[in-house]
Every structure is written in structure tokens, then in C-alpha cells.
């Protein structure tokens, strides 16, 4: 088969997924950006003509702390998830065939129950009258009047809980391909177990780390259910503001401008990372 016909076939095979992405992702994203430049009408729809007024509105400094909280919560969730997922992926890849299947199943099982139900479960777990609060007070680990719910830490905890599988799975995929004989070589050359892990295993699964980080970080940026259900009024993320603009204020252009801004805030760093990896790969060749 010639090179051209092979690449033609590859295009043909990926046509369904490409058209899916185009229809349900690229076109809506463009529509969102277009909507940001249209005036709002009073019925909650989009009025005629074009305007830059919305773009000026979203430069409101009141958004800055919310944007900052969104970024640091997403960043912190990513770091915590990676720190927890790396040893898990390491152990899973080293486990026997049967044990691996069991562990994989355990990672995936939470997905079998509805996302909202799991968040509500956290809500009742952490409720002042809930079992966890009572247990911790009973053990004198927290003061009598401590409130576990409605706190920015609670948001972080539940974010980590929901995103952890998305960090474990790509890391496990990378760890499974890792040659564990390299750890023997590192030990042989004088590295203790921890340095062998950090100097050889971690660089060995760096592509998996990048995938996991992007996956977790991007998913966190758009979150609004978790801060709304387990966070306090001062723990809102940008997603909550977008939801308010759509459902309460019925101002689609304003919501679109916020969503578009967030999209750019994600896409630009991702493009930089992809380009940086491409350059790295070229250098390696």
C-alpha cells in the first residue's frame, strides 16, 4: 500500500469521530464565541446586531478573585490527584494479572453510581449531624462545633475524589508500558527505592503525567456542581458564575463571554504544552 492511500484510509477511519467532534464540539464552541459579541435581549435570548459591551462587562474586577480561585483549586486538585495516583499506578502496574483486574474495577466502580448522588453522599457524610463529623468529634480530632461542610477545603476534597480516577487511568496506561527492569538498574547504580522511583519511574511515565494533569485540570475548571453543593457562598468557581448568568440572569452573551474566556485560558497553555512536546520529540530524533 502506498503512503498516500494509507493516510487516506486513516482519514476515512477517523471521519466519524472527527465529524462528531466538529458537530458537537467545534461548532458549538464557535457559536459560544459568536454569542459573546451579540447583545442580550430581555427574554433571555440573543438580540440583533453586534456589540463589544459584553466583553467590557466581563472585565469586572469582581471576577478576578473567582478566576483566581478557579485556577488554584483546579491546580491544587491536579497536584493532589497526581501525588495520589502515581503510587497507585505504580503498584497496579506491578501487581499480578488478576490483582490488576480487581484494582482497575475498583477504580472504575464509583462511575456506576450517578455523579450527583456521589456528591450528595459527601454532603450527608460531612453534614454536622453526619457520621464522619460525629466520628471525628467522638475521637476528639476536631472541636465540637467544627463545620466540615461549606468550606473551600471541602470543595478541594470532593474535587480530588471525583477527579482521581481520571488521573489514575492515564497514569496506569503509561506505567503498564514502563520497563520495571529500569528500576533494578537504578538500584544497581546506587539509587535507593525512593530515588529510583523519582529519577527513573516518574520520568518514564511523563507522558501519562501530562495526560493526567491536562485531564484533571480541564475538568476542574468547568466545575460548578461541587462548589454549589459542598462549598460555601464564598467558594464559588467560574462555572457557578456562568451557570448564574444563564439560569438566573438569563444573559446568554455574558455567559458566553465568560465561557469563551475560560476556554482561551485553557487552550492557550495546552497549545504551548503540545508545541513544547513536539519540539522535544524532534530533538530526540
Amino acid at each position: 500500500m502506498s503512503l498516500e492511500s494509507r493516510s487516506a484510509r486513516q482519514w476515512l477511519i477517523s471521519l466519524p469521530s472527527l465529524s462528531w467532534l466538529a458537530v458537537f464540539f467545534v461548532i458549538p464552541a464557535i457559536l459560544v464565541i459568536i454569542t459573546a459579541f451579540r447583545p442580550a435581549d430581555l427574554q433571555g435570548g440573543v438580540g440583533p446586531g453586534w456589540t463589544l459591551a459584553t466583553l467590557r462587562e466581563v472585565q469586572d474586577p469582581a471576577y478576578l478573585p473567582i478566576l483566581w480561585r478557579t485556577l488554584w483549586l483546579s491546580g491544587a486538585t491536579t497536584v493532589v490527584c497526581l501525588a495520589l495516583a502515581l503510587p497507585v499506578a505504580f503498584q497496579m502496574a506491578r501487581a499480578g494479572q488478576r490483582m490488576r483486574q480487581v484494582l482497575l474495577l475498583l477504580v472504575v466502580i464509583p462511575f456506576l453510581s450517578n455523579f450527583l448522588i456521589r456528591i450528595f453522599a459527601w454532603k450527608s457524610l460531612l453534614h454536622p449531624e453526619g457520621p464522619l463529623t460525629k466520628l471525628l468529634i467522638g475521637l476528639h480530632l476536631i472541636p465540637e462545633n467544627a463545620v466540615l461542610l461549606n468550606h473551600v477545603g471541602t470543595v478541594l476534597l470532593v474535587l480530588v475524589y471525583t477527579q482521581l480516577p481520571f488521573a489514575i487511568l492515564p497514569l496506569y496506561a503509561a506505567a503498564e508500558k514502563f520497563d520495571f527492569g529500569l528500576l533494578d538498574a537504578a538500584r544497581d547504580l546506587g539509587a535507593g527505592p525512593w530515588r529510583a522511583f523519582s529519577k527513573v519511574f516518574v520520568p518514564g511515565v511523563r507522558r501519562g503525567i501530562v495526560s493526567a494533569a491536562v485531564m484533571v485540570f480541564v475538568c476542574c475548571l468547568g466545575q460548578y456542581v461541587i462548589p454549589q453543593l459542598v462549598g460555601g457562598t464564598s467558594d464559588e468557581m467560574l462555572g457557578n458564575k456562568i451557570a448564574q448568568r444563564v439560569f438566573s440572569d438569563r444573559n446568554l452573551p455574558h455567559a458566553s463571554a465568560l465561557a469563551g474566556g475560560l476556554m482561551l485560558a485553557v487552550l492557550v497553555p495546552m497549545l504551548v504544552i503540545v508545541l513544547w512536546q513536539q519540539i522535544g520529540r524532534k530533538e530526540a530524533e
Partner: protein
Amino acid sequence: MEDFLVIDHVSKSFGAQRAVDDVALTVAQGESFSLLGPSGCGKTTLLRMIAGFEQPDRGRILVGGRDITSLPPEQRPVNTVFQNYALFPHLSVWENIAFGLRMSRRPREEIRSGVERMLELVRLSEHARKRPAQLSGGQRQRVAIARALVNRPQVLLLDEPLAALDLKLRQHMLMELNTIHEQVGTTFIYVTHDQGEAMSLSDRIAVMNAGKVEQVDSPENLYETPRSSFVASFIGDANFFSGVVVEVQHEGYVRVLVEGLGSPLVLSNGAVSANQTLRLMVRPEKISLTLTRPSSGERVNAFRGVVEGMAYFGSHTRYRIRAGEHSIQAQLQRSRFSGGEIDPARGAEVWMSFHPDEGRVVRLEAAA
């Protein structure tokens, strides 16, 4: 000879499987030593115990008089060249070699000079910036050797160092390894299943079978005087015959009757008594072929057979000859073939003969 590396009655089991069974060995400083045996004989397990990746169930391992049995791999004065080289793919050749020195937190200048010296030793200076994936198999192996030797180990372990290379490169690397060994003078322990490799690389070889050491000897002695039929058949090719001692002569010669070979054979091994059943071995190249009965006196064992098949190898020709029950391998060196004689053809009747000193008793059996 000073015992530098001491394997003191070491055993290791995996479940019910006895991988290494009470092995005792000593290796001198600077020696080039091979653990040779078929796969599953325990040689790799023994190597991994010296490196520290496996713990012996029983016994001790000493290097330079120090007991290292309970030390983790990173604290042993031992480095390994792994079978697949196990180079770090994310590091350059330079950084791969520097890894061990960095782990022991040597000063920057020492790391630089150590790496440069090693790059020169394995002649890879111009490839220092490359990644392992950009190197050929032979170059990768040289990086693996440099990466281990830069730490100045007291013992260097090499696990099947040539197995991943093609034939031509393998012969080149044989010479190269011997040169490196001469230059650095470190104790080298090879693990290999290839007898040719072991013979050309080592001062002494331990032949292992089923977790035990069958014989430890120089390559010449293993080949010329194997002490078991396993060693005889594992090192080189061999013809085996079972026979009964019919007469013990003076001067240490015995006469052994082998069914189907005519008159009793004369052998030089004297440590047997009459009526004993034994197994004896003759190397194919020790058997001379002639068309007529050799007439060099009484002390030559001669018997007749019919050529069944032959294979031409350029430097020599290998014959398979039928004599009664026996199928005998004989080898004819081209240079030794005397003028006037013709090559025996298939179906030709030939005389085989060997000198009494060329036959070896490899096993004694209970007296019949």
C-alpha cells in the same frame, strides 16, 4: 589465589522449585569467571543474588571478605550489565553513564572526568549527546558497560552480554570485552548459556545444571576432562558409549568392552576396577577416519562403521557413522586430510580410531 568473591553454600527456592541448590564458589580478584548452563539452571538467580535483587534462603555472599548478603543492591560494591542493557531512555548516553556517580553525590568535576574516561574506554565520545534509542545494539551495550564500570565496582556482573547481538557483532564484542577486562582489571562474572562465549571470555567456568554446580574448571579442562556426561555434552560435542571394564592393565590403562565396537577399547583412566560399568566419552575431532585399518600399533582403538551422512562446514567436515547400535560423530579437519586419500562417501565403509588418552570416563555406574 585469594578468594575475593565467595559464594558460601547459597540456596534459593521459588515455591517448590529449587532454583539454586547449595552452591559454593570462590572467584579470585581480577578473574574473569562464567556461570554457564541451560536456561533454568539457576545461573540468573545466582547472579541476581550477587547483585542483591534476590535474597538467598540460606548461605552467605562475601566480597573482599565483607558479608554483603543482607545489603540492598544500592549499597553493594557490585554493578550489573543487564541482558537488555536497561539503559534509561529519557537520559542521554552521557547522563546514563553519570547516573551512578550522581547517585553517590560525587563532586561535579569527578563526574565529568569519570564519564569522559568511560566514554573513551568504550569509544563512544562522539555519541555522548545521543539518546539510547538512537544507538545500535553494540553501542548500547558499550554504554551499559561504561555505566556500570564508572562506579569502579569490585565485581562486574554481565548477564548474557552478547545474547542480543547478531553473530558478527558478537564475535567483535567478545574481543572487546576481553580488552576492557584487561584494561580495568575488575572481577568479571558472566552469565551465559552459550558455551562458546563462556570459553572465549573466561579464565574459569562454573557449569551449572538444575541448581547445582557440576564442575568448576578452566575452559581447556572442561573440554578435555569433563567430569560428568552433562558437562561433556554441554561443552562441545561428544560421543558417549556405555561399557564394562574387562581388564585393569598396568600404567593406568584399562580395557573396556563396548557392545558393537569389536575388541575392547583401551583407556588411560585408571581409577576403575574390573567388572565396573561406566560411561565414556570421545570428542568427534579426536576420532580419525581412514579407509583402511590404521596400523599404528596396539595402543590405538580402531573400529569399523558405515558412513550414514555428512555435513561440510568449510574448515571441517562432520560425519555420522553407524557402527552396530552406535551412531558416531567424527570430524575431519580439511588441513589434516592427507593427500591421496579421497573423502569417504555416503555408504562407504571406514575405520575410526582414537588414542587411549583421548577417551574419558565421565560416569561410573554401580558394579554389575
